[in-house]
């Protein structure tokens, strides 16, 4: 995202410059009024909680508040790194996101390529509308749909498996299948929606390149491989970066809907863990420490991805 376009006024720093700046700001006071409500909400609900995250270094006590509670340094982080549960949760989070990156990430790109090749305008629009649709279903609904499809007694999937003489599988509560269910439901909900950005990028590719390639006798697959994919490379990199930033934080609601104590060992992720021990067991400080760990790792991942992509000549996030 390009946000380097901010230009400061002329004559920075000098006395007359300041006076001029003040005058200009006064002339545009309405702009600051417009900005104010959003800024206020941002500070109260995003920045005050960042300050409140200090309780990760304290023993938070309701009566004393954030300021008054006693400092305990890194105690909660030590507890966390010594807890086996934390490692299992962290590894689950990493694995689930890795699987999503490997198996789910390419689907919207392929879908965009497929939709792009459709010549019939009506069919094209129809397939777009239908594939975007699941994005508008809540995770509660998607989990209900999957529970219905995968039901061991009357779900379609097990009915079909039954035809081949396979015994019903409890997909939702079987450790072997749980992560696959997460990846598939995520692919079901987001693929169409994510394809929009790739479709937009594909349309921006110069049509002359295809003409030239066709002249040289390139097949469709070669055109896609040598023209389309390189043409949308920067968008792919951009999406990967955005994904990395949210990598450790984005499955809270999904997992909360899908998991059950039977699959905690493979499905419990940082978000759900924080929720359970924080609000369930009221361990405010400890769960904030887990949350902080999650946020910091997320930030580090984005910063690294940004640096790497700039190194390879791509536009970064900043």
């Amino acid at each position, binding site marked *: 995202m390009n946000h380097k376009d901010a230009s400061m006024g002329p004559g920075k720093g000098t006395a007359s410059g300041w006076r001029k700046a003040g005058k200009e700001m006064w002339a545009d006071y309405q702009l600051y009024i417009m900005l104010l409500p959003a800024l206020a909400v941002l500070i109260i609900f995003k920045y005050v909680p960042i300050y409140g995250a200090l309780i990760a270094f304290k023993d938070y006590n309701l009566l004393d508040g954030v300021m008054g509670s006693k400092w305990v340094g890194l105690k909660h982080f030590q507890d966390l790194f010594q807890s086996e549960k934390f490692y299992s949760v962290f590894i689950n989070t990493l694995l689930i996101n890795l699987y999503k990156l490997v198996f789910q990430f390419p689907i919207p790109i392929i879908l965009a390529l497929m939709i792009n090749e459709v010549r019939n305008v009506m069919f094209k629009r129809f397939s777009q509308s*239908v594939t975007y649709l699941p994005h508008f279903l809540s995770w509660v609904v998607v989990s209900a749909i999957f529970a219905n499809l995968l039901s061991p007694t009357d779900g379609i999937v097990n009915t079909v498996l039954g035809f081949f003489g396979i015994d019903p599988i409890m997909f939702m509560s079987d450790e072997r299948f749980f992560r696959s269910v997460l990846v598939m439901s995520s692919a079901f909900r987001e693929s169409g929606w994510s394809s929009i950005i790739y479709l937009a990028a594909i349309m921006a590719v110069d049509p002359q390149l295809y003409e030239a390639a066709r002249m040289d006798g390139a097949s469709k697959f070669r055109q896609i491989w040598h023209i389309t994919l390189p043409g949308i490379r920067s968008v792919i990199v951009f999406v990967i970066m955005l994904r990395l930033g949210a990598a450790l934080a984005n499955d809270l609601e999904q997992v909360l809907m899908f998991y059950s104590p039977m699959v905690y060992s493979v499905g419990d992720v940082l978000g759900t863990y924080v929720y359970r021990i924080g609000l369930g067991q009221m361990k405010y400080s400890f769960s904030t420490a887990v949350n902080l760990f999650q946020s910091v790792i997320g930030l580090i991942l984005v910063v690294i991805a940004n640096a790497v992509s700039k190194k390879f000549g791509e536009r970064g996030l900043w």
Partner: protein
Amino acid sequence: MHLKSRGETVFEGINSILLCGVIVICLLPLINIAAKSLSSESYVLAGEIFLWPKGFSLNAYDIVLGSRRFWDSFGNTLFITIFGTLINTMLTIFAGYALSRKRLRGQQLFMFLFIFAMLFNGGIIPTYLVVKGIGLLNTLWALVIPGLVAPFQMIIMRLYFYNIPDSMEESAKIDGASNFRILFRIMIPLSMPSIATISLFYAVEYWNSYFDALIYLTNHELFTLQIYLREIIINASSVDINNMELMMNTAQESVRGATVVAVTLPILLVYPFLQKHFVKGVMLGAVKQ
């Protein structure tokens, strides 16, 4: 137009067939659940329902739509969706417009504040404590106010305003129009696709809100549709029913299906009206980033 080679024809044919497969995958689960909601108990229990209801029955809908809790949570969800979407869209337009003006001083600092908030957050508990401290706990506003700033949408809105030619604004300024007037008379009418997109995003988000309701509300009267639906999915008997006989003769599977349909249909009805806008809106945002 060039002539299609045989390879291309084959390619397009196979492509269309595969795409039809994708369409089926997207629609089939929804149709299946709707078919179950419209079928009578014996067929549902026997697992015979696939795409078409058998033994057509509206019992499940009678149960769901006859439930007071359904309508209470429907009202709550409607409330937060309407107010949330309106206020959120307004704030996004205001902030996006202000930050799109190059002459706005401190712009880099403000942008940093928004972007950093997108990448880093204090966490569930500190946010919960703020919401609690302000006294929003157990009010529907707890589901509206903390989410009023969505940096990502604000940035898209800002880009949209940014790309409107300066000359539009300058001529209005010469005529003595204020910033508010310029925004309402020129910028907003020119940005309707983008605004429609953003409000659809917000509406869907508020309609689907589950987690916030889960942590900020303990009062059952304030529960939202998604919380209600979740309870039905886990335990169909939590529907309050006046008619036990009706309940006895209806499969839980059907009640769940009917609730899913009743919760999802309203928001899906909005979608076709805004769809042509949002494809345009999202794409503009995407290409010009």
